[in-house]
């Protein structure tokens, strides 16, 4: 009954991809997952040998922007692979079956692949009033989540809803919308953002799939790979901040020259995300590049950190080496002072930081065990 499932390499061969295409795909996947050249062998090996891992994608209190972002993932071979080489056994957004036939897909996967399937969760879970605020097939979201998480090999929380409750958890949180890591006891990879960048989503899956382990996470359960840097520190408009050149009003002459949006409320300085490096929609842009400040959508409680157009408090000495673990989110309180002070501090710190970074980057790159495949 158990038949051998084709590996990604085998599947690509039947699709007419050459070995060279395959190797290029592996390099791309490795680059996206942040693997250096010496780790390539394990990437190639993993794609050659592994059958498509079963995936269950649950939807609770959400708006489906995470699913939409996921299908915006830009590398062509990646989207082929996501379609062909993951087995999306349950996903209410795309699956053909509905009703009890759909539920059967879920139960079959949980039963036949216990301990092997990846659970992806989009949406928060309402914990108030016995779960009447979100039911599927007559069952509460909490009930479904707990059952599906029980035998999952890995659990990924897509977006801010599943990671931190997002908008429905904003004050006064009428339904007691709760992020999934507070409900299940397993470790959860949080991939926040409203939504997360599509390429980041596929990269996180690729990371798990290739290495068979979860990526390094920060204190909020976010992959450091994509949430280790503040938007501010990698922003192409950062030099204007350092030089004290700010947009003062929408569409003023400074806005037309692309100065820093800090005074317009930009949350880049307190937001850990990949937007200014990976960018959105195949690198087309990101919010700051298109003239609007970052609203901080990958941070816990960002909806209650507004208003969005009031600029942040000063954060003197808040250098780029700091991580979310040591600083946390700065709550927005209006203050004009401190901008210049910070800019000056930043200048002085920069030299030291650059030197430190160079040294540390060398020590960080000592080879680690990159196991995972059989």
């Amino acid at each position, binding site marked *: 009954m158990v038949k051998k499932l084709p590996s990604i390499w085998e599947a690509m061969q039947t699709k007419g991809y050459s070995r060279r295409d395959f190797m290029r795909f592996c390099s791309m996947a490795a680059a996206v997952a942040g693997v250096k050249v010496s780790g390539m062998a394990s990437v190639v090996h993993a794609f050659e040998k592994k059958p498509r891992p079963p995936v269950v994608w649950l939807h609770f209190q959400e708006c489906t922007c*995470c699913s939409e972002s996921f299908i915006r993932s830009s590398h062509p071979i990646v989207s082929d692979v996501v379609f062909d080489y993951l087995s999306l056994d349950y996903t209410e957004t795309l699956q053909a079956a509905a009703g009890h036939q759909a539920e059967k897909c879920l139960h079959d996967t949980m039963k036949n692949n216990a301990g092997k399937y990846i659970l992806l969760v989009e949406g928060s879970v309402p914990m108030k009033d016995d779960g009447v605020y979100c039911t599927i097939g007559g069952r509460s979201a909490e009930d479904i989540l707990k059952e599906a998480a029980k035998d999952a090999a890995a659990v990924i929380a897509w977006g801010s809803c599943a990671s931190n409750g997002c908008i429905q958890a904003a004050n006064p949180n009428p339904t007691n919308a709760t992020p999934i890591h507070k409900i299940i006891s397993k470790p959860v990879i949080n991939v926040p953002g409203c939504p997360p960048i599509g390429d980041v989503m596929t990269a996180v899956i690729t990371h798990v799939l290739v290495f068979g382990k979860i990526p390094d996470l920060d204190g909020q359960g976010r992959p450091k790979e994509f949430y280790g840097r503040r938007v501010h520190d990698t922003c192409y408009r950062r030099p204007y901040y350092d030089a004290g050149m700010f947009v003062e009003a929408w569409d003023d002459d400074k806005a037309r020259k692309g100065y820093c949006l800090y005074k317009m409320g930009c949350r880049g300085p307190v937001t850990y995300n990949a937007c200014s490096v990976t960018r959105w929609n195949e690198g087309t842009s990101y919010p700051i590049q298109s003239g609007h400040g970052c609203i901080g959508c990958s941070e816990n409680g960002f909806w209650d950190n507004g208003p969005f157009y009031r600029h942040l408090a000063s954060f003197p000495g808040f250098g780029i080496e700091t991580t979310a673990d040591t600083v946390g989110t700065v709550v927005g309180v209006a203050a004009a002072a401190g901008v210049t002070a910070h800019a000056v501090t930043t200048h002085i710190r920069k030299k030291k930081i650059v030197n430190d970074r160079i040294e540390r980057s060398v020590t960080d790159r000592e080879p680690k065990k990159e196991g995972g495949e059989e």
Partner: protein
Amino acid sequence: MARIVVDPITRIEGHLRIEAVVENGKISEAYSSGTMIRGFEKILKGRDPRDAWAFTERACGVCTTVHALASVRTVEDALKISVPKNAELIRNLMFCAQYCQDHVVHFYHLHALDWVDVVSALSADPKETSRIARSISKWPKTSPGYFSDIQQRVKTFVESGQLGIFANGYWGHSAYKLPAEINLLAVAHYLEALEWQKEIVKIHAIFGGKNPHPNYLVGGVPCSINLEEVNAINSERLNHVLKLIKDAMAFVEQVYIPDLMAIAGYYKDWAAVGGGLENYLSYGDLPTQGYNQPDSFKFPRGAILNRNLNEVHDVNGKDSEEIKEYIAHSWYKYAGGDKTGLHPWDGETEFNHTGPKPPYDFLDIDGKYSWIKTPRWRGNPMEVGPLARLLVGYASGSDEVKDVIHEAIHALQVPVTALFSTLGRTAARGLETRLVARWMKGFYDDLLANIKNGDTRTFNDERWEPDTWPKTAEGVGLTEAPRGALAHWIRIKDKVIDNYQLVVPSTWNASPKDHNGKRSAYEESLVGTPVANEDAPIEILRTVHSFDPCIACAVHLYDPDGKNIHQITVR
């Protein structure tokens, strides 16, 4: 007689449950229930009105941008702000890009599997598929080898034993009528559309920084135009937009429409099923002379009653007698009782879940059974969406609308009344996409002409600062989401949101019965729909999907009493 339950309804946005009573192979009664709620209006109270677009945009990530547009219009209406010409054009371009992406994804990825049998594509002759493809379109990817590769890919997929999203589908069901060759064509375009849809939304990324959920701004748009600057909308960005528009026009004209017509030709019997209500409502959209000039809209505003296309009724979102919401069968409580209807500005509600606690097998259909309220226009249930837009356009005398409709019904050799059906609704979505793609190019040309004339303004700063606002203000923002008429209402008091409400397309279409027992659009359309096999009710999916359900934004609550409301003081 059997009561069947389909929950979850898949290939939609949100959580929808349908319970239907089947008698003699046909649905005799139906119950539509939204089973998830988040409570947006309660969360919006006390916040800065200029932030509301970001909150409400999160009502839906499938039809992203539309709530943001409704919201900025609502606030601009309340504060009497008019936006610069460039901002109007950029908003229109984003609107059109959304329609193209959303409608194509709906057709191929959410709706097609109701009509297309993927497994049947395995027995197709790729040469014949190629011949058919070439006979209906000049799209270049039509060689026999191409379709043979696609077929091989499906074969490998099926033989892997891991059917993924195709598992437990209704393959082989007697309701599937397409020849294997057309099934193969549709499967190929399912994959191509998945690749293409991520391209067109780059227009959102260029003007709004990202998609899904690009950025908007009360008073204009956040991006600036500067032809002498790399850090703004410049020639390169505009060229990028033009390329995306041209590609969109090609995809819609050469893939979407030929496929739609080819598939529709085999399902003409569905032109007699699922007609539902006889009333249609469109707020209209795509202004060309400003939002306050609805006469200039590409999609006209109006209401049609009893399918009388000789009369278009005026629609006014501010008239307290026109739009009212009822809760007789919704899990809310009104002080005036369950039979009262309230205009959104006077909305008054609190949660009142009286249904069965989960887990449950059936809803209490005699009582309240949904988180969706029931809106009525002058007491009438109304259908909203692409069909309503086209009918209001047709009845208003729009030549462009008439032309695409006549062309389609002539090609299919059906009467114009075929539009009042499940098939008609699905066709209308495609036909309006043709119009929208053309209009998008027109708005692009207008934007270039305006810039060429020396106007680069994208923002009106007159009432940005809250100290320029009156002590109280109220506004309405009307738009047409891909799924239909969408409106937001706001009351601003002391510079913060005092009350904010949304009445969205799926509130009109997916709502439960009203206090008089009258059905809304989904339920009315389901009555009479045939069900050949109660264990595999694919026909229910066809009719429900023809509306393109989008449920997350349909459920919300109003709470003017302000209990436990978080207050934020704005400096």
